[in-house]
């Protein structure tokens, strides 16, 4: 900053501000209607900027949560377990498939390390693609919490040994700590994990949703257990219909078609 004699600067600035109607000139207590209007306009602007900042913050928060979950996928598929664990808050919980609940960041680290067979990085010949797609992010009104549904697509296996297709939805919770979004609760339902040969039409679930809990018991049993493919389950949506549920005025048409498509047995209402 260039040094200018303070007095000259002050006088110059005050005259400018005075001309601009931003400061009172002459008697400090006296204000003109123009000055009052300028002050009111600044106050209004300040309020509007704050509102706009809050709206931009929402967009930034949603993007940060997408970034967090996508980064999770990129670390998981390379077996970078420490990077994965560091995405969670200290008091986070993790529940994948039917393995049960693991509490706290260090147990989560242990879980992922066990998933990787105790080593950092993949084994030679291991494929662990886990695509994180279809985010539905819902921000809490407090600005510090959020929920999101995602779909995880898995192409996994070991060359020469086995290969599986997998998929299922996450319903996760996130928390903002010191301005940084972290995973607070991760819950993934394994809809299918089936051998590549024959796929989901010919095979039941490959591991019945048990990945590591037989060797690393969880801190708590599964919060809800709905079996394994071909059992199916609709994990509840954390979000409300953003428009509204359709309310038919009378019984919906197409009943004949629907009845024809209905399997002969195993119907649940």
């Amino acid at each position, binding site marked *: 900053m260039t040094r200018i004699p303070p007095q000259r600067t002050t006088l110059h600035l005050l005259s400018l501000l005075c001309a601009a109607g931003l400061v009172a000139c002459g008697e400090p207590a006296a204000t003109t209607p123009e000055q009052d209007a300028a002050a009111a306009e600044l106050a209004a602007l300040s309020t509007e900027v704050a509102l706009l900042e809050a709206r931009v913050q929402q967009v930034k928060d949603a993007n940060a949560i997408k970034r967090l979950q996508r980064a999770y996928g990129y670390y998981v598929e390379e077996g970078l377990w420490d990077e994965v664990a560091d995405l969670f808050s200290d008091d986070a919980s993790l529940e994948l498939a039917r393995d049960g609940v693991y509490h706290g960041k260090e147990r989560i680290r242990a879980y992922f390390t066990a998933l990787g067979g105790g080593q950092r990085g993949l084994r030679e010949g291991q494929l662990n693609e886990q695509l994180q797609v279809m985010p539905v992010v819902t921000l809490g009104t407090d600005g510090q919490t959020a929920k999101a549904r995602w779909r995880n697509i898995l192409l996994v296996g070991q*060359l020469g040994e086995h290969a599986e297709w997998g998929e299922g939805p996450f319903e996760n919770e996130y928390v903002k700590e010191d301005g940084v979004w972290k995973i607070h609760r991760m819950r993934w339902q394994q809809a299918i994990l089936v051998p590549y040969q024959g796929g989901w039409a010919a095979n039941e679930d490959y591991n019945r949703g048990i990945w590591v809990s037989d060797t690393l018991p969880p801190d708590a049993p599964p919060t809800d257990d709905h079996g394994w493919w071909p059992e199916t389950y609709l994990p509840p949506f954390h979000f409300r219909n953003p428009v509204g549920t359709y309310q038919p005025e009378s019984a919906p048409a197409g009943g004949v078609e629907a009845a024809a498509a209905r399997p002969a047995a195993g119907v*649940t209402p």
Partner: protein
Amino acid sequence: MNRLLAYRAVLLATLGAVPLGMLPVQAQAPEAAAALAARLALLQAEVRNLEAENAIENLQGIFGFYYDKNEWQQAADIFTEDATFEWGGSGVYVGKPRILAYLRSLGAEGPQEGLLNDQMQLQPIVTVAPDGLSAKARWHLFSQEARHGVEHFWGTGIYENEYRFEAGVWKISKLQLYSSMKTPYEAGWGVTALPRSTPSSDLPPDLPPAMDYANYPAVFVPPLHYPHPVTAAVPAPQPAEPLATDPGSLREALDALEPRVGLLQDADAVERLHTIYGYYLAHNQWDELTGIFTPDGTIEIALRGVYVGRPSVRRNLDLYGVQNELRGTLHNHMQYQPVIHIAADGQRASMRSRAFSLMGNFGGTGRFMGGTYENIFEKREGVWMLHKDQQINTYFALYDVGWKDLEWRPAPGITDSNPPDAPPTLQFEMYPRPFLPPYHYTNPVTGR
């Protein structure tokens, strides 16, 4: 900030070092104005970079849709003049003309009979530079490739790309695809892993491959351009220039920014609604799905014709199964790669996106479906709704057959017992016949 500090220092000197909080209201005005200007300038920079993220996600999605259909000229046109291009082990092609030459070496221009080349662009992590003039992004590639009667493959890879903002338009300045896995459809990745490609002898690259690595089954981590999201921070956006501090200029800047923020929120809302559509569809939630349409909305899928209005939309959905009916059935309809354009008034949006479905019954048959959506969304009384849902199917493939020997058949067409309100608006062909689903947009760089 220097300006702000200068004002504060000067005011304190003038008023005899009175604490700021005790200043008369009118004396705080310049302080407030300067602080407001700084906040607005930062907000402008944040909005600029959020718009850049959206533009880059659109751009890569647009690239993917061009690449799918051998639209080589269109694809090459979204690169900078000095861009570099490397696909797996192709080596590096330097400059737009060489990129076009490389792309043309892959096949004739435009959709081809018997060719399937679905290259899905997924899982973006976009990092915009603080000045908003360049960006990097990681993407996941998931591909379904086939030559009818000859061969068919699954593939995956990781892009680490770079982008540049030139004359108001985002372009790709570096495309680098690290190939990960490629396997013939019949065997799958548990049996066969194909190696990384090698440079062409017919059209040798300008530079050798930038990095020495091997495909799966080797272990290789494509370098990550971004810092860890929790243990490190991305540098904050930097304002291009300070704003004038008079109330008139501040008002003008604020009024110009507000609608841009609205469009960012609109883009988020539209993408979210379309994703919700996918989840409702996947679980036969027909009343929920019908509810997201406008009262006069339309659905048009698989040449079944156009169903107009919510009661007809609801009736159409009965064609795909019974509401809430799930047992032993996989009906996973995924929504990927949205390219979203919001109208300037924020009341209407157009979206192209990709459909990929895993379907079938345990003990029955498994099926894959691929397709393209060209949808329209409208904001009605402040709420985004789906107004036109149109899916142009690329294929329905039995799990046990795949794409190599998939026999051509027309899309399902009209159901006599549950007919549409109007015939199909667009007659399309499915693989192995060639078809280019019309785009709602023009090339973002050339306007063609």
